[in-house]
C-alpha cells in the first residue's frame, strides 16, 4: 500500500488537468471541484489513519531505491498537514461559488486551485531536497496564476513584486541545494541528514543551512523578509487569500521545521538561537503592522507574520514542548487563518468596503457573522479553551524551560495585541447604532457562512478536544527531535 503516499499529489493534479477542460462551464467546474476536494479529503483521512496505525509510508518513486531515486515520505507530521490542507481546500471549494468571483472563475481558477494543492502536498511529503524545490515551483506558479487572476492595476503591480521576490529566492534555493550536494554528494534529505551528522555539521555546512533558512524564511514571511506578503495577499479575492494565508507561508515554515530538525541540528546554539530572535522580531513587527491599518483584510494579512513567529519560536527552543507547540500552532493557524480570511471576505462583501472607519452596526443585520468573528478573535489570540491556547501553552513552556524569558513576554504581549487587532473589527465594525448602517442593503450570505462555521468548529475541537490530538502531536515531536528515526525509515539498511 505504499502507493497511497502519492495520492495526495496525484489526485489534485488529475483534478486540475480535468478541470482545464471544463473551464468555460463554470457550473460543472464548481461541482467537480467540490467532488474532487471531498474525495481528496476522504483519502487524506484514510492516509492519516493508516500512518498512525501502521507507521510512516515510504514510497520509492519508480522503484528506484533510496537514496538514489525520489522518495516520498508520508510520516505522521506530513499526513496531518495534508489532512489540514485538504480540509481547508474543501471548505474553500464550497465557499468559492458564493464568493462573487464571477468572471474570475473562467480564468482557470479551479485548475490553479488544484495545482496549488498539488504543490503544497508535494512539498509536505517529499523526502528529496531538489524535489522540494520543484514542488515549491509548482505551488508558486499556481499562486502566480491565482494572484493575477482577473487583475486590475493594483493586482498586477503587487503580483509583479511577489513574483520577482519569489523568483530570487527560488534561484537562491537551487544554488544552495547545489552547494549542499557538493559537500555531501546527495540530495536525499535522509542521507543529507546522515552525512551532516557524520561530519558534525562542520565547515561551510552551517552557512549553507543559513542560506536555506533565508530561502524558506522568505516564503514563510518571517522578519525581515515578509515585505511582499501583506499587500499581495489582500489583493486577490477572499478564497485565494485564505488559501495563501493558510498554506503558502506554512509550507515555508514547515520546510524550516523539517530541514532544521533533520539536517542542521548540530549547531543549535547558533542557528536555533538566531531563530528565536527572528521569531521575536516577527511577532513584534507583524503585530505592529496589524495595528497600523484600518483595512480589515490587511489586519488579517499582517496577523500571519506573528503566527509564523510563534511557530518558529518552538523550532528555535528545540525542546519537546516547543516542537509540539509549533506543530499544534501550525495546524491551528492553517485553520484559523483561512477562517479569518473567509470571514473578512464576507464582511467586506456585506459592508461594501474594507475600511473599518466606514463600518458600524453590522451586528444588527449579520449576528452570526459577528459572533463567528468574535470567537475567531479569541481562537487566534490563544485564549482557552480554543486551539491556539494549547499551542501557545506548549510554545511558552518550551521557551521558559529553555530559559528564554524575554521572548515569552514578547509572546504574551503580542497575543494581547493580536486580540486587540481583531476585536477592533468586532467593536467598530459590528457594534454600534443601527443607524450606522446607513442605507446599506441587507445582503444574503447564503453559502458563505456555513463553510466557515464548519471550519471554525475544528478550531474549537482542537482546543476542547485536545486530549484526542495532543498525545499524537507529542509523539510527532518526539519523532522530529530524533532524526535517526526518519533516516532509518528512509534508508532502511
Amino acid at each position, binding site marked *: 500500500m505504499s502507493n497511497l503516499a502519492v495520492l495526495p499529489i496525484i489526485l489534485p493534479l488529475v483534478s486540475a488537468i480535468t478541470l482545464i477542460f471544463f473551464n468555460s462551464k463554470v457550473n460543472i467546474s464548481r461541482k467537480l471541484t467540490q467532488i474532487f476536494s471531498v474525495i481528496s479529503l476522504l483519502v487524506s483521512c484514510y492516509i492519516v489513519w493508516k500512518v498512525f496505525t501502521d507507521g510512516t509510508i515510504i514510497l520509492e518513486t519508480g522503484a528506484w531505491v533510496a537514496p538514489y531515486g525520489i522518495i516520498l515520505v508520508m510520516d505522521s507530521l506530513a499526513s496531518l498537514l495534508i489532512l489540514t490542507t485538504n480540509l481547508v481546500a474543501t471548505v474553500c471549494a464550497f465557499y468559492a461559488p458564493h464568493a462573487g468571483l464571477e468572471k474570475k472563475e473562467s480564468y482557470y481558477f479551479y485548475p490553479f486551485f488544484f495545482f496549488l494543492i498539488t504543490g503544497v502536498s508535494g512539498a509536505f511529503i517529499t523526502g528529496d531536497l531538489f524535489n522540494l524545490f*520543484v514542488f515549491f515551483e509548482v505551488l508558486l*506558479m499556481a499562486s502566480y496564476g491565482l494572484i493575477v487572476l482577473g487583475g486590475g492595476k*493594483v493586482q498586477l503591480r503587487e503580483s*509583479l513584486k511577489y513574483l520577482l521576490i519569489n523568483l530570487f529566492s527560488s534561484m537562491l534555493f537551487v544554488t544552495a541545494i547545489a552547494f549542499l550536494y557538493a559537500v555531501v554528494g546527495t540530495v536525499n534529505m535522509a542521507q543529507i541528514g546522515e552525512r551532516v551528522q557524520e561530519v558534525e555539521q562542520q565547515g561551510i555546512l552551517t552557512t549553507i543551512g543559513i542560506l536555506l533558512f533565508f530561502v524558506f524564511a522568505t516564503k514563510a514571511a518571517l522578519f525581515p523578509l515578509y515585505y511582499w506578503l501583506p499587500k499581495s495577499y489582500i489583493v486577490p479575492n477572499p478564497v485565494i487569500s485564505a488559501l495563501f494565508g493558510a498554506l503558502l507561508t506554512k509550507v515555508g515554515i514547515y520546510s524550516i521545521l523539517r530541514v532544521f530538525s533533520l539536517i542542521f541540528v548540530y549547531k543549535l546554539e547558533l542557528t536555533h538561537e538566531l531563530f528565536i530572535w527572528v521569531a521575536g522580531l516577527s511577532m513584534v513587527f507583524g503585530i505592529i503592522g496589524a495595528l497600523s491599518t484600518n483595512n480589515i483584510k490587511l489586519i488579517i494579512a499582517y496577523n500571519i507574520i506573528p503566527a509564523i513567529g510563534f511557530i518558529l519560536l518552538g523550532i528555535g527552543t528545540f525542546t519537546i514542548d516547543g516542537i509540539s507547540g509549533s506543530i499544534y500552532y501550525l495546524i491551528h493557524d492553517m485553520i484559523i487563518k483561512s477562517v479569518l480570511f473567509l470571514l473578512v471576505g464576507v464582511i467586506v462583501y456585506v459592508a461594501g468596503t474594507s475600511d473599518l472607519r466606514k463600518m458600524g452596526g453590522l451586528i444588527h443585520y449579520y449576528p452570526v457573522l459577528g459572533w463567528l468573528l468574535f470567537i475567531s478573535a479569541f481562537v487566534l489570540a490563544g485564549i482557552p479553551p480554543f486551539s491556539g491556547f494549547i499551542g501557545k501553552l506548549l510554545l511558552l513552556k518550551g521557551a521558559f524551560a529553555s530559559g528564554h524569558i524575554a521572548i515569552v513576554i514578547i509572546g504574551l504581549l503580542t497575543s494581547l495585541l493580536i486580540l486587540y487587532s481583531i476585536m477592533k473589527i468586532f467593536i467598530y465594525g459590528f457594534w454600534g447604532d443601527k443607524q450606522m448602517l446607513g442605507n446599506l442593503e441587507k445582503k444574503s450570505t447564503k453559502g458563505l457562512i456555513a463553510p466557515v462555521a464548519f471550519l471554525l468548529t475544528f478550531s474549537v475541537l482542537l482546543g476542547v478536544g485536545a486530549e484526542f490530538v495532543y498525545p499524537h502531536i507529542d509523539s510527532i515531536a518526539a519523532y522530529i527531535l530524533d532524526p535517526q528515526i526518519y533516516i532509518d525509515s528512509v534508508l532502511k539498511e
Partner: protein
Amino acid sequence: MEIITSILAGILFATAIYNLLQKQLLRIVIGTALLSHGAHIFILTMGKLKTGQPPILTDGVSDYTDPLPQALILTSIVISFGVTSLLLVLAYRTTKENNTDNMEQLRGKSNE
C-alpha cells in the same frame, strides 16, 4: 578552474542583483535572466568539472562527468523558462495598465 567558474557565477549574481535593484522594469527583467545563468553555472561547478567523459555510456569508458547536476540544471532551466515567460507577460501587462515601467512609481498607497 572551479574557482574561476565560481567567481564567474558570483559576478553573474552580483550583476543580476545590481540590475534587480534598479527602477526600470526592463533592467529588473535582465537581472532575473542573469540570475538563472549564475545559478546554473554554480550547479555545474558543484558537480566537479571535467572529471571524465560526457555522461553517455560508451564501451571502454569508466569515468564519466557527474550526471546528476546536469539533470538538475535541465529541470531548473525549464522551470526558469516558464517563470521568465510569465514574468515577461506580467511585466508587459503591468506596464500597460499602470502606464509606467518605473517600479518606484508602482508603490501603491498605504491603505489599498
